[in-house]
């Protein structure tokens, strides 16, 4: 049953399950100005809860009227069964508006899903007008966000774009987006590059924090030997520098072959059995000793 009433502003309470978590004071002030000029064009949607009314849709409008110190407010009173039902209606009202942040969207949908009222993503999706895939992605993004310690500024899309990488690398990508080194529109390409890259490049991304542009450039090098050589210098180079360096290596190897070799060097003691082993290195210079455990 639906009825329209003029209710007292101080009997209206905000919805604790409201999807929107942040209210911009400036925006509220702007809305208040517009209400002062033109009046309230659309009533609030509320539900009766004891002696008070709980907002289902229109918290910004209610805040604006509070700001204007109005006493009465027009509201449509909906007959709502329970909290989940209220949230559902609130979600439908808010979800399709673009100004809801990723984290707000993730929170509310996960909350609805975890209420246990819906058996499948499909069922939930139909209820709030989203596809099954969207629901699944949003819930996955919420879970991954917690695991990756991603801040609120990271969108669900960015988190989902990193799927397929190990957590260590996902964290690194998210970190780069957070600090602005990697644009959100480049995340998908960067992740694709990482997936295709051999182990040394992937290691350099994590251990040496190699710049994303440099990583893209090094990954383009087809021959692993040159890739390894460039990686050693990559920290000191710009992406253009990498291109020049590769060109220089190719020119040099035409006139004077660059020797690469693998040979056993050095001896390391096994801490477990105390046996001594010779240890190999992969590079011509700078021995890389490997820890030996038998």
């Amino acid at each position, binding site marked *: 049953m639906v009825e329209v009433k003029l209710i007292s502003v101080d009997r209206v309470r905000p919805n604790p399950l409201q999807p929107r978590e942040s209210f911009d004071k400036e925006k509220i002030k702007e809305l208040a100005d517009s209400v002062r000029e033109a009046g309230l064009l659309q009533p609030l949607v509320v539900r009766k809860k004891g002696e008070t009314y709980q907002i289902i849709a229109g918290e910004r409008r209610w805040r604006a009227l509070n700001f204007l110190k109005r006493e009465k407010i027009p509201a449509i009173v909906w007959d709502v069964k329970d909290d989940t039902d209220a949230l559902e209606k609130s979600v439908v009202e808010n979800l399709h508006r673009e100004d809801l942040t990723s984290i707000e969207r993730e929170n509310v949908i996960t909350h609805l899903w975890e209420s246990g009222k819906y058996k499948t993503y499909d069922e939930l999706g139909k209820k709030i007008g989203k596809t099954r895939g969207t629901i699944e992605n949003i819930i996955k993004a919420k879970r991954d966000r917690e695991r990756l310690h991603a801040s609120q500024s990271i969108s669900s899309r960015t988190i989902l774009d990193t799927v397929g990488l190990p957590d260590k690398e996902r964290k690194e990508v998210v970190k780069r987006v957070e600090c602005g080194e990697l644009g959100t529109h480049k995340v998908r390409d960067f992740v694709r590059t990482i997936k295709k890259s051999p182990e040394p490049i992937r290691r350099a991304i994590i251990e040496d924090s190699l710049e994303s542009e440099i990583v893209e450039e090094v990954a383009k090098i087809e021959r692993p030997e040159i890739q390894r050589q460039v990686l050693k210098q990559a920290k000191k180079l710009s992406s253009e520098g990498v291109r020049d360096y590769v060109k220089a290596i190719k020119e040099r*190897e035409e006139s004077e*072959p660059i*020797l*690469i070799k*693998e040979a056993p060097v050095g001896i390391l003691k096994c801490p477990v059995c105390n046996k001594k*082993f*010779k240890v190999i290195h992969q590079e011509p210079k700078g021995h890389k000793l490997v820890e030996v455990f038998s």
Partner: protein
Amino acid sequence: MNNNDLFTPANEFKYYKYGTTKYPNIIRFFDKTPQTIVCPHFFELNWGYGCRFDCAYCYLKGTLRGNTDPRYLPLKHILPCLKEAFKEISKPSIFNSGELTDSLNFPKVMERIVDEFETQDKHKLLLLTKSANVDFLLKKLRRQTIASFSINAPKVSDRWEKKTAPPIYRIESGKKLSDIGYTVRVRIDPIFPIENWKEEYGELVDLLLSKFTPERITLGTPRGLAKTLMFAKDLSWTKWFTEKTGWGKKLSTPLRKEIYLFFFDKLRESGFKNPVAICKETIDMWKILGKNPGRFPYWEDVKCNCVW
């Protein structure tokens, strides 16, 4: 850490690899055979890829994925790798130059490589060939070079080794090299059980031993590796395969045993007293033949074509 990374005498050699940025695998250790196959591992000297002889059964078809057109590496890439390997590999080793190409396909380059081996006296170069083009070797004796001629019964050669020198020419070349002091080895591989194979191969052995006595003879039966079968165009040589082993398809065990015993008897009757080995055979076959090859990966009792 993986146990394979441990440096022990058994896998010492596998850690040596020399190349240039452009050709990274010029010298590397061949250790692809599994534990069930007796094959003492050796160094490959990959100075070229592909072979113009185009034998029907050749594994290169699979290894090079059908592209067997020969191409050779510039000497300026090969020689520094050799110098480095000579300096660093302390244990005397044999470098097989006929693994991915025929060793005598391009004598101009090979002559320089042969001479490079003469700069030291520890390691030896193995020339594995189906060619008879040994003119450059005849100019002078190179003590660090071992020539190994792969020969077969003329009927087999006519059928599946169409572009090679006829076996008699290869034997003649072997004789010439042997006469001036080269170490010459012979491999009769793959031995096909063609019609009247005992007569065909018996005549081959007679012909060989009438010309010269090889330092050792290695025998082999056809090996149908999966990749070879995938890329080979003429598969008529595969009709005798009945068994699967750790190194591709093979003839049946009794047939292989019969072939090897035939050769052992024939060579003994002909007065051949140097080592006779079998190539990439199963450990079971060695046992059936009453021989002990030693233990993986040393196979210390095997004196076959590619090792000391």
